[in-house]
């Protein structure tokens, strides 16, 4: 009853508007030809958020971007360099463990007290360390910004790393690692990295049961000390604040953070020699789908070919109607979705194409993947329309990067982390527009090297092995879920 009363009151108020609207449109309707695609209006002006960049006395960079639409502030400290630069050999996982342990207690507060304080502020602090960068971050209401920052500072600088917490988190991590083995998609990407980069290159390494068991409390404390340094930090504040207010709050909140540290160098070992194209088959008995990862090491983010590669990938495997998905999902119905991407970083991130494929169509899908990859390197020339659509997709999609305080924060921080110019977004359209079909062919041939693709497939061997062999696309190598050769595997006849 309560609901209906409300509804009828509302409906009464609405009738009036409905009538007036109906009047407006009578004219338009008489000439409506639905076959005519409505033309777009004039292209709206792109408003790239502005920001200030200053240096704090401790060496950290402070970026502030004002946005007063809502009483929200996003705060992030980003560290240049990550587990690939700072984790000692054999201790993969210490970065993530340290990140988790920052909230376990400080010199003045227990883990429970820190948690309760954050709950009462209505927010949480995210801490993460990835391969090449790490961050501490939160979004709060404007009024809770300073007290939340105080807790973040306390966790970053005064953590006590209780031994009991280390054992609890170690136990949880081990359970997570066991569960990951049951996830074909996770296994697929881990094995793919191992095949491409080997175990000597950080890109091929990951946290294992052995490395987690080897982590000591001293390792964690040493990592914390070495890593969370202002000399490699970018502090980004976006939202309902001003440069002056944010700077004062940060200087006060992080006053105890003494100058130290610098930006690491990103020297990676040489890549293992490229192997002739091969299928690496990981057996997952009974799997309903085969998880595909096809690719090889690619260029770093600072490649001059970046814009050409972005356009190329948009045509090949970016949006829904890209070549791979249009063919393998929409036309053939072999999958719920396939795609491709270049994983850009400071080192040779992978080019990868893949997706989950209905087991019975594993061979047919591989044939189509190869057809599309051959197509993009020249057999199926890119049309003018494909080129235009891909450029429109990239250029006109830019405003979507500025839709929230945390999105803006990411967009600005990216420029500093990757060493891109401050006017990157202003010149983005120009750079994308400049890409030609010749550029695309050149970068496709250069980076999608068909002779040396690793084709990693996680699936039900009993069902897919023979059909895969019959495609004759590449010889099959048998590996386990760790990426190691399986002893006694049936030798491939190929």
């Amino acid at each position, binding site marked *: 009853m309560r609901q209906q009363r409300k509804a009828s009151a509302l409906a009464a108020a609405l009738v009036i508007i409905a009538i007036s609207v109906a009047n407006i449109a009578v004219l338009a309707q008489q000439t409506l030809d639905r076959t005519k695609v409505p033309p777009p*209006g004039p292209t*709206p002006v792109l408003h790239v958020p502005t920001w200030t960049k200053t240096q704090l006395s401790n060496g950290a960079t402070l970026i502030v971007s004002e946005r007063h639409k809502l009483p929200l502030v996003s705060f992030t400290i980003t560290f240049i360099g990550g587990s690939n630069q700072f984790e000692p050999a054999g201790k993969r996982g210490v970065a993530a463990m340290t990140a988790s342990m920052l909230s376990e207690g400080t010199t003045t507060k227990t883990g429970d007290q820190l948690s*309760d304080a954050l709950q009462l502020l209505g927010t949480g602090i995210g801490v993460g360390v990835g391969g090449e960068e790490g961050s501490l971050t939160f979004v709060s209401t404007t009024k809770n910004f300073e007290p939340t920052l105080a807790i973040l500072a306390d966790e970053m600088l005064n953590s006590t790393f209780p031994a009991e917490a280390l054992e609890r988190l170690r136990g949880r991590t081990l359970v997570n690692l*066991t569960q990951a083995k049951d996830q074909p998609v996770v296994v697929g990407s881990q094995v793919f990295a191992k095949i491409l980069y080997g175990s000597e290159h950080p890109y091929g390494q990951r946290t294992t049961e052995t490395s987690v068991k080897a982590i000591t409390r001293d390792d964690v404390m040493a990592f914390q000390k070495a890593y969370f340094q202002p000399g490699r930090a970018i502090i980004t504040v976006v939202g309902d604040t001003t440069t002056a207010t944010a700077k004062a709050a940060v200087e006060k909140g992080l006053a105890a953070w003494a100058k130290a540290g610098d930006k690491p160098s990103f020297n990676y070992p040489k890549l293992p020699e490229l192997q002739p194209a091969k299928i690496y088959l990981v057996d997952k008995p009974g799997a309903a789908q085969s998880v595909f990862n096809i690719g090889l090491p690619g260029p770093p983010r600072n490649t001059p070919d970046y814009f050409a590669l972005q356009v190329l990938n948009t045509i090949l495997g970016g949006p829904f109607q890209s070549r791979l998905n249009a063919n393998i999902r929409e036309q053939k119905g072999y999958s719920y*979705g396939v795609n491709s991407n270049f994983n850009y970083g400071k080192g040779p991130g992978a080019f990868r194409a893949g997706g989950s494929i209905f087991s019975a169509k594993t061979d047919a899908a591989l044939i189509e993947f190869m057809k599309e990859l051959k197509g993009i390197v020249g057999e199926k020339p890119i049309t003018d329309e494909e080129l235009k659509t891909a450029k429109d997709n990239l250029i006109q999609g830019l405003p979507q990067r500025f*839709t929230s305080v945390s999105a803006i924060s990411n967009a600005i921080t990216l420029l500093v982390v990757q060493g891109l110019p401050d006017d990157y977004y202003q010149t983005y359209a120009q750079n994308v527009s400049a890409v030609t079909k010749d550029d695309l062919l050149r970068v496709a041939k250069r980076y999608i090297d068909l002779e040396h693709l690793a084709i990693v497939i996680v699936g039900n061997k009993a069902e897919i092995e023979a059909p895969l062999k019959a495609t004759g696309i590449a010889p099959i190598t048998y590996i386990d879920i760790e990426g190691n050769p399986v002893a006694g595997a049936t030798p491939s006849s190929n």
Partner: protein
Amino acid sequence: MTNKRRVLSALALVLTISLSQPLWGQKKSSTSDSIQIPFETYKLPNGLTVILSEDHTTPTVAVDIWYHVGSKNEMPGRTGFAHLFEHVMFTGSGHVPYGLHDKLTEGVGGGNNGSTTNDRTNYYETIPSNYLESALWLESDRMGFLLDTLDIAKLNAQRDVVKNERRQSYDNQPYGRVGEIFSGAMYPKTHPYSWPVIGSMTDLSAASEEDVKAFFRLYYTPNNATLAVVGDFDPKQAKAWIQKYFGDLPQGKPVERPKVPLGKLDASKRLVYEDRVQVPRLYIQWPTVGSKHDDDYALSVMGSILSGPRTARLTKALVYDTQIASQVAAFENSAEDVGVFQLVVIPRPEHTLTEIEAAVDQVIQKFATEGPTAEELQKAKAGLELGFLRGLESNLGKANQLISGAVFDNNPAQFKTDYQKTLAVTAADVKRVANQYLTRPRIVLSVVPKGKKDQASKASESETVSMLTRGGTQ
């Protein structure tokens, strides 16, 4: 991200629910009391409800349509139609050739997607603001003229995609069958919430072209739809376009809403399911109420007090104090007509599910006896304001918030009511719902590794679930 596209169903249900908490979280303190979503709403003569909300922060617009049809409107033996349409609706319509929809959205830097739950299906476009007119044209064409170009070939192609979606999201996913096991066990076979949103492989294969078309004619009508336009646009212009493209679509038959009884168990059930996993899990569900029932507010608050942060009751007891579990989650999951309070625990290796279940019961019993403390209540509500504000950041977030109220409560501003009612929840309310709902007969499900039924909680009393009768991986 093609993979994320046209996501649905059980997953979407969980997502919707978890989103709807912050969304109806809404405002709390003085800062946010002044925060409003300015909007305007009206109905076209053919019954289409329209909501307009301007926001000129970025030169983008979200166009969002909800049809008040979900899997609960299907018939046993013909399940999965609402979700199948979520796919078919992207394959072209009377005046829109296949592929043009993507071209006028993704192809111009925008996006599109849809989602299906038990209760409703939504379709949306996020676009640069100069493409608003074409987005309205696209949506109106598939509302009015979808069947003009729908043939068996198109239907079969999307059926294959949906079967792949099922394989990917359920069958090839560890623990992926849990949702459908519960809905099958919680409700009688003819109950509209008893089948999974994605439907069964058998039903999807059996559906005829005419079955599917009849379903569309009944539910995809202006009078069963709500359209929201949110973002950078001129309202006068938008109204004219909406009238131009939607105004002449014929009104459909009135839609009868099924009268859906709440879930009710005469006795507790104890089930065990063998999956391709290495780590067992314990799941428990209690039948509760739908999202329109006032107890839903207290049940949601109870979820925040029982699990989540490290000082939440179950988390503290199981993950921190005794450390018998690696993770625990407990929350109210309500749909339009029914709800469940659900719990999942991932044990640490040395601890059995039987031990876990006993520990859970002990925490819940103590909680039901003493109720929450004032501080627990305060902490559970403190995040509402931030959740509310963050939900207002994107055009699409705002659109979904307004439409949800319009569809389920006939009031786009329902989020305010929800927010106030959540803030008004007392310790006595929470204590009462704990006693009222968590002492009822319930379903306990153990998911165990293949061949390890003895790892189930109270294994000898547990009945084995075979999934061959539903879905299957054919």
